[in-house]
């Protein structure tokens, strides 16, 4: 009898998330929920200045406060060669400042005390004597003649340039431009934002003096990489380190890097031989940890009169803050920026990129995106729109004309990626139909006659998710594969562990569904564990939408290994040879007599009780999966808006999303991911940004200044799907967690700009705050750059 796959919670089942029953009842287990016997509390003293020389740090008054156990300063760390640590981009970062502070919020000292109140009081009692230095807050200032050198700690660093990098074919691109009928240009700024997970960063370091083993409970999306890094930085043997990442309250890339707080809590625990807890406050998280974006992009597009794109030039000026600590694959300096224009059939392109240091927080993490893809796709879509405007072409038509066609895969992108699947035109058609494209254009014209401003914006893109194949993708030299380990118990229940780490993506639900699909074991019979390096198999962690493409594939592969062994057991139980049996979901049966068969559960019991001679007992295995390519989901996002001509306030009228992420394992979770991504896309377009005044003061250091939209202002989204299976993924799935965040912003911005369209307004930079929209509308000129900040705040 065949098992019903949806009933057992297999592929395609809209199964309720199993982790939610503890989350929504307040029974999750986050780092801050953990209390260890004898635990102390650590607080960080941060720099109030963005750039200053440290003349002295006097902790005597802090040490005199009862309950203070230890004050750690840069000097103390330097004496143990721990004042600086390596970053994920081959730079160094100060753990605690010694010579200078280089951004507001930088870690200067740490207090360890009996309780967090005392620790905080003691931080206030530390006296730091600063000598203020000139401050740099953007790439223009960073590269100006005579600019102060921020990283004077580095021997060969004589300016603020971190890298000059290029990719593509410069000569070929020049030739394409020489042959162009029209050249379109665009310059824009993608403002700095912050992933801002609800849970901030934190750790509890527990150095066991009896065994010399170090256990660290830590908010990390990549526990195994952390274990390796801690081993290298702290010179502790890797087998004596256990990293446990318990439930995470969101990550969005923010919990990939290694932060000074983690390192100092570890050192403090070793010095004091007691557990030390550090829980960052919200301001600390916003002003010092990994941010996203903060990049100026400009470029040109060579076009034929009919709209065919002949070539693209791009240049990026990226602001990395005081330390180059971007989390990204080693080969690349500006992430996967060069994935831009991948959905269009463009013969040639050239990208140059310059990164600079500024007196701002370091980071440059992939905030809900696959390494700078968000900026790449935003520029791509705005550039295509600019070209459409210049040529007087319809925004849907120029995209359709240039899309890679369904039968042109695999397709080599102008920067060298290999896309392998998609139905771009179909997605666009569904989107246009859903939004009522032709009707809306008429409605827009009618409304304009009555003084109402309506606009529509389309954004389409494919992006590389699931880094990656190990030929090209590594972090600090460690290849970007992933793994899964599956143990099937004798009663047919199973324990699955992977090297990924859910931060809300629902792995406990989804991975079990993959096992159910491969083995016919009901998903409810599979428990999923992640995040403990002593038990989970090695993995690179969860970010860049890589879990389903890589770890999810490993889950399939390990399940198939289990099935192969179960087949041998089934043959033994049925007393036939393996060639005589067939598999259907959950059951092996005799080809000649389909009613005779054994279930996977019966095979599991036999693995512990009735094995063929010579077979190794048990039913467990592991699999390491190195994907042959990235996965290439496609998204089409269309927004319609109305702008109030007297205030510049804009409202979303409708929003349609068409996502093709290949086979959907749990459609409900996929939809949740898309909804969440669109909310963040709307946020970035509308309000969510961090900026700095000329003295480097961070504007956006708390939730009154750093605005996350609530359910009140976030518009509704209408979701549609197309399924083009990934040709190389075991179950045809592609990454999806980030598509909407990546592709969404351009739809909103284009729609607002479309509503204003008149001579002169080519660009309004995000965030599209009402005053900026009003300025563009009434002055008829571009509104570019960060929102201005008063310096006397």
């Amino acid at each position, binding site marked *: 009898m065949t098992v019903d796959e949806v009933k057992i919670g297999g592929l395609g089942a809209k199964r309720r998330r199993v982790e939610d029953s503890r989350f929504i009842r307040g029974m999750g287990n986050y780092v801050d929920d953990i209390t260890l016997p004898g635990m102390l509390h650590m607080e960080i003293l941060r720099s109030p200045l963005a750039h200053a020389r440290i003349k002295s740090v006097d902790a005597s008054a802090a040490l005199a406060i009862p309950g203070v156990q230890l004050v750690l300063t840069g000097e103390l760390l330097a004496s143990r060669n721990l004042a600086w640590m390596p970053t994920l981009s081959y730079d160094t970062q100060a753990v605690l400042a010694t010579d200078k502070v280089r951004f507001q919020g930088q870690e200067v000292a740490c207090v360890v005390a009996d309780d967090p109140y005392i620790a905080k009081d003691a931080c206030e009692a530390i006296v730091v004597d600063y000598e203020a230095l000139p401050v740099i807050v953007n790439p223009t200032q960073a590269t100006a003649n005579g600019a102060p050198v921020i990283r004077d700690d580095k021997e060969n660093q004589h300016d603020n340039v971190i890298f000059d990098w290029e990719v593509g074919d410069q000569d070929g691109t020049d030739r394409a431009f020489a042959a162009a009928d029209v050249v379109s240009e665009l310059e824009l700024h993608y403002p700095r934002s912050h992933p801002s997970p609800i849970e901030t960063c934190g750790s509890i370091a527990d150095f066991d003096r009896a065994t010399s083993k170090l256990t660290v409970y830590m908010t990390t999306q990549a526990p195994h990489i952390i274990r390796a890094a801690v081993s290298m930085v702290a010179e502790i043997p890797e087998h004596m380190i256990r990293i446990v990442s318990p439930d995470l309250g969101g990550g969005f890339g923010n919990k990939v890097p290694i932060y000074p707080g983690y390192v100092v809590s570890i050192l403090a625990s070793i010095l004091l031989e007691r557990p030390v807890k550090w829980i960052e406050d919200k301001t600390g998280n916003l002003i010092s940890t990994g941010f996203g974006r903060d990049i100026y992009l400009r470029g040109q597009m060579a076009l034929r009169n009919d709209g065919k794109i002949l070539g693209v030039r791009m240049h990026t000026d990226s602001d990395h803050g005081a330390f180059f600590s971007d989390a990204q694959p080693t080969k690349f300096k500006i992430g996967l920026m060069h994935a831009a224009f991948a959905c269009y059939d463009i013969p040639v392109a050239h990208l140059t990129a310059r990164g600079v240091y500024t007196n701002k927080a370091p980071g440059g993490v992939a905030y809900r995106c696959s390494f700078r893809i968000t900026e790449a796709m935003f520029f791509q879509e705005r550039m295509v729109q600019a070209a459409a405007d210049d040529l007087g072409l319809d925004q849907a038509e120029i995209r359709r004309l240039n899309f890679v066609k369904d039968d042109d895969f695999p397709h080599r992108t102008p920067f060298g990626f290999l896309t392998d699947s998609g139905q771009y035109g179909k997605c666009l058609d569904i989107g246009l139909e859903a939004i009522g494209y032709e009707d809306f254009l008429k409605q827009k014209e009618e409304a304009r006659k009555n003084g109402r401003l309506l606009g529509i914006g389309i954004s389409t893109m494919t992006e590389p998710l699931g880094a990656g194949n190990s030929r090209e993708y590594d972090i600090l030299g460690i290849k970007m594969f992933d793994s899964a380990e599956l143990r099937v118990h004798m009663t047919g229940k199973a324990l699955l562990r992977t090297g990924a780490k859910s931060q809300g993506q629902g792995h406990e639900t989804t991975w079990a569904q993959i096992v159910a699909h491969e083995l016919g074991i009901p998903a409810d019979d599979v428990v999923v564990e992640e995040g403990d390096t002593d038990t989970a198999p090695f993995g690179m962690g969860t970010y860049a939408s890589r879990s389903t493409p890589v770890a999810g594939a490993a889950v399939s592969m390990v399940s198939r290994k289990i099935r192969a062994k179960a087949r041998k057991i089934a043959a033994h139980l049925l007393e036939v040879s393996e060639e005589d049996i067939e598999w259907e979901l959950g059951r092996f049966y005799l080809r000649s007599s389909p009613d005779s068969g054994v279930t996977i559960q019966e095979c599991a019991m036999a693995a512990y009780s009735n094995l063929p001679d010579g077979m190794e007992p048990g039913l467990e295995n592991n699999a390491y999966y190195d994907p042959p390519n990235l996965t290439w989901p496609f998204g089409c996002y269309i927004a319609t808006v109305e702008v109030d001509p007297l*205030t510049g306030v804009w409202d979303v009228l409708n929003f349609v999303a068409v996502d093709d992420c290949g086979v959907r394992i749990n459609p409900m979770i996929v939809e949740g991911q898309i909804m969440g991504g669109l909310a963040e896309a709307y946020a970035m377009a509308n309000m969510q940004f961090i900026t700095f005044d000329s003295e480097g003061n961070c504007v956006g250091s708390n939730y009154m200044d750093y605005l996350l939209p609530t359910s009140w202002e976030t518009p509704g989204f209408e979701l549609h799907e197309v399924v083009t299976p990934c040709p190389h993924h075991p179950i045809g799935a592609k990454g999806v967690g980030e598509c909407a965040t990546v592709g969404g912003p351009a739809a909103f911005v284009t729609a607002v700009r479309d509503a204003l369209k008149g001579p002169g307004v080519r660009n309004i930079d995000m965030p599209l705050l009402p005053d900026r929209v009003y300025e563009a509308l009434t002055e008829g000129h571009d509104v570019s750059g960060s929102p201005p900040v008063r310096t006397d705040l």
Partner: protein
Amino acid sequence: MYPARFSYEAPETIEAAVELLGGARGEARVLAGGQSLVPMMKLRFASPETLIDINNIPGLAYHGADPDGTYRIGALCRHVDLEKDGDLGTLQPTMAAAAPLIADPIVRMRGTVVGSLCHADPQGDWASVMGALGGSVVAQGPNGRRSIPCVDFVDGPFQNVLEPDELAIEAFVPAPVGTRAGGYLKLERRVGDFATVGVAVSVEFSGTQVTRAGIGLTGVGASTICAGAAAEMLVGEELNGDNIARAAGHAAEMSQPRSDHRGSEAYKRHIVATFVTRILSSLQRTTQEVA
């Protein structure tokens, strides 16, 4: 949340609270809803030695009209009490328009109107509403009570004129002359954000003729601006396009905005004029329909 150390008192009478305030010599803060004070203590922008929690004092949660039409709001009346009061739209249309725009639903559940007035945030909404309505704050000190008109109550950002030993126990609005109409409009970037610009307008009519008018402006000065002069231009007239435009223009001139990341000075002035116009035009339509 790790505030600095403080002591906590929870008096059960107004007199006891006033006595505690006196004893603290200016180092105490009153806790009513705590929606501004507690976040400030969390950030250690405020580190009072003593918190005097007045939530145990009975009889301060009231709001409503006296027989003579005077409208009173006790010190423990929450924003949500006004928001949910179905009669408020008739009695106090400006307040009714403002109540649902105060911060977010969570803040409205606990935050108090009088506490908000005392907090004297230039971006607070109630001060301009009360200013437009000609309201006052009642303070109780060791020697009795006094009324302080809202226009005089605030003397700078986050500063009010209460003596250290005075407790604000009530805010009140005088009875209208004729029919009361009004509105409140707020430009905010997000629910719960402080106002980029808030405009409160109150107009009292006899028939279609304006008998009394007030305009209060939020977020466009170092403290709330009562644009009385702009409103007084309307008294004795029927609302029309011309006088609405003049009042709006005058209110914009009276505002003192500064450019910041919420918008430029010129933009904020423009929003003041736009909102005054929008509210008055809507009142004009309503009064003419009634007439």
